C-alpha cells in the first residue's frame, strides 16, 4: 500500500469483488472439495459415500503403482530440469558472446516457447515411430531396438527428450537476459583479473546468474510436474497401462478413467501439500541466500 492512498470505502471492495468471487468459486471451492472427498469413499456411480478417514491416503502410500509414479516423477523432473537448464545455459552463453547474428539466434532459439505441449508430443510420436521414425531409425542402427509405448524406459526416454526440447527456450530467454544485464564494468574488471574464459565464467558470471538460476530451477520443477501433461498424454496415447506417468497425470487417470474419486482427491491433496512446501522453501531460501541486484 502506498502512503498517499485513496480513502474511498466501497470502491476498493468493488474492484476486488470480481477477482475474489472467481477465485472463491473456481479455486477455493474445488480445493476444499478435494480435501473433503479425500476422506470419503464414493461408489463408482456417485450415489453414496462413506466417511473413511485416512483410508484413501493409507491405500495410496501402500500402492505399488503410486510409488512407481512417484519415483518416475522425481527422476523425470531431475532429468528434464538438469538437461534443459544445462543446454539452455550453454546456448545463452554462446549467444551472449557472438556479436554477429545475435538477434537472429535469439529469434531462432525462443519461438518453441509458443508450441503447445501436445503438439510437441505429436512430433515425438513421429520421430520415435517404430517402423520409420528418424530417431528410432538412428537408434536401430546403433543396435537399440527402440519401442515407444511398449518398453517402459524407451517411453520415459522419449518423454524426457520432448519435455527438454519444449523447455529449452524459456530457460534460454532468462539466462540470456540475465547475462545481458551484467554491467559492462564488471565484465571488464573480470577480463583484467582473470585471463581464462572458463575461470571468468565460474568466478564472475555464474554467481551473478544465481538468482536467475534459482528462479529457473523452481520454474522447471513446476513445468516438469504440471505442464508436461499434454506431452505425456499424447505420448502414452491415453493408454496408461504399463507406461511411465507423473503424479499429476495419475490424478487425472485415476479420477477420470478409474472413477476412483476418493483416491484421486487424496492424490490431489498430497500434491497440494508438496507444492506448498516447495513454495515455502523457495521463499525462505530466496530471502536468505540469494541477493537480487
Amino acid at each position: 500500500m502506498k502512503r498517499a492512498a485513496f480513502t474511498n470505502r466501497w470502491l476498493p471492495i468493488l474492484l476486488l469483488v470480481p477477482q475474489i468471487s472467481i477465485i472463491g468459486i473456481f479455486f477455493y471451492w474445488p480445493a476444499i472439495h478435494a480435501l473433503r472427498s479425500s476422506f470419503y469413499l464414493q461408489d463408482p456411480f456417485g450415489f453414496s459415500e462413506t466417511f473413511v478417514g485416512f483410508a484413501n491416503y493409507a491405500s495410496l502410500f501402500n500402492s505399488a503403482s503410486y510409488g512407481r509414479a512417484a519415483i518416475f516423477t522425481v527422476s523425470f523432473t531431475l532429468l528434464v530440469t538438469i538437461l534443459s537448464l544445462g543446454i539452455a545455459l550453454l546456448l545463452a552463453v554462446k549467444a551472449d558472446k557472438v556479436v554477429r547474428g545475435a538477434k537472429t539466434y535469439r529469434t531462432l532459439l525462443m519461438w518453441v516457447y509458443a508450441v503447445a505441449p501436445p503438439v510437441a508430443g505429436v512430433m515425438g510420436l513421429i520421430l520415435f515411430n517404430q517402423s520409420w521414425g528418424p530417431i528410432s531409425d538412428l537408434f536401430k542402427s546403433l543396435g537399440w531396438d527402440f519401442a515407444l509405448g511398449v518398453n517402459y524406459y524407451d517411453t520415459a526416454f522419449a518423454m524426457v527428450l520432448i519435455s527438454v526440447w519444449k523447455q529449452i527456450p524459456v530457460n534460454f530467454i532468462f539466462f540470456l537476459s540475465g547475462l545481458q544485464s551484467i554491467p559492462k564494468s564488471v565484465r571488464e574488471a573480470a577480463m583484467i583479473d582473470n585471463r581464462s574464459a572458463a575461470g571468468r565464467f565460474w568466478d564472475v558470471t555464474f554467481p551473478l546468474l544465481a538468482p536467475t538460476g534459482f528462479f529457473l530451477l523452481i520454474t522447471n520443477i513446476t513445468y516438469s510436474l504440471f505442464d508436461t501433461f499434454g506431452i505425456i498424454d499424447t505420448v502414452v496415447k491415453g493408454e496408461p497401462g504399463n507406461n511411465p506417468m507423473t503424479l499429476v497425470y495419475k490424478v487425472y487417470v485415476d479420477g477420470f478413467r478409474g472413477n476412483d474419486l476418493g483416491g484421486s482427491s487424496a492424490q490431489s491433496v498430497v500434491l497440494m501439500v508438496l507444492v506448498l512446501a516447495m513454495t515455502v522453501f523457495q521463499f525462505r531460501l530466496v530471502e536468505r541466500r540469494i541477493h537480487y541486484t
Partner: protein
Amino acid sequence: MNTEIVTQSAPRARIKLSLVFDHGILILGAAFLILPVLMLLQMSTMPDLFNMKNGPSFAIGDQLDENFRKAMFEADGFSGENTGVQMLWNSLILGLGFAAGKIVLGMMAAYAIVYFRMRFATFAFWIIFTTLLLPLEVRILPSYEIVQQLGMLNTYQGLIIPLIASATATFFFRQYFRSIPEELVEAARIDGAGPFKFFIDILVPLSRTMIAAMFIIMFVYGWNQYLWPTMITTDEDMFTLVRGIKQIRQSLEGTSLPEYGRANMLALIAILPPVLIVIFFQSWFVKGLTESDK
C-alpha cells in the same frame, strides 16, 4: 623474423576457431529446435500413402494446399462441426478471452491493493496470492464437478473463467504499480483527480508496455491450454485446435489410411498464431517474462 609472424598470427587464428565453435553450437541448438517442425511441414506436402510407408523424408510433394484445404474445411469427428476454421475460432476466443479477463481483473485487484487504505488489505492479499501456488491441474477433478454443477460444460465461460482463477496477472501488476513513484498519485490528488480519473488517465496509460507484454504471455498460455479444454468440451464445435490434437492423434491410429498430411497440417496451424506473436513481439514478450516473473 619468422617467429614474430607466428606469434602474431597464432592468437588471431585461435579466436577465429573459437568463434566457429560458438556459432557451431548455436546452429546445432537452433537446428535441434527447428527440425521437428520442418518435418511436420515436409510430411504435409506428401501423399498419405507415402507417409504411411516411409515416414518423414527429404522429398517435397505437391499435397500442401490439398492438406491445408482438408485441415481447415473438412471435419474429422462425428458431428462434422470440428473443422479447422471452427477450432481456430474457438482457440482465438479462448486465448483472447483469457488474456483480456486476466488483465482486467488483475489490474482492478492490484489497483485496490496498492492504492487504497482498507481494513482487510492483508487478508485480501493472502486470499488472492495463495492461488499462485496451486495450478488447475492439481484440483482438476473437483473443478470439473463444479463447472458441471453450474451447467457450464461446453460453454466459452466454462472454458475461460476457471482458468482465470489464479492471481498471476494481479501479482505482476501489483509489483509494477509499487514501482511507480508516489509523487504521481500525490500530484494527481492535489490536482483534484479522483480514484477513477487517476486509474484511467494516469495508471493505465503508464502501464501500456506492461499490459502488452502480459497480453502476449497470457494469450499464448490460454491458446496452448490442453487438459482443461479436453475435459470440459465434448461438443465437437467447441474444440480448440490444441484440444483437437487429441483427435488428430486418435485418427492416426485408425485402421484406415492414417492422414499424416492433414494431421500435421492441423498441428502446424495450431502452433502458427502463438509462434508468430512471440516472434513479432519478442521484445515485449521477453520484457514481460523476465521483468515480471521474478
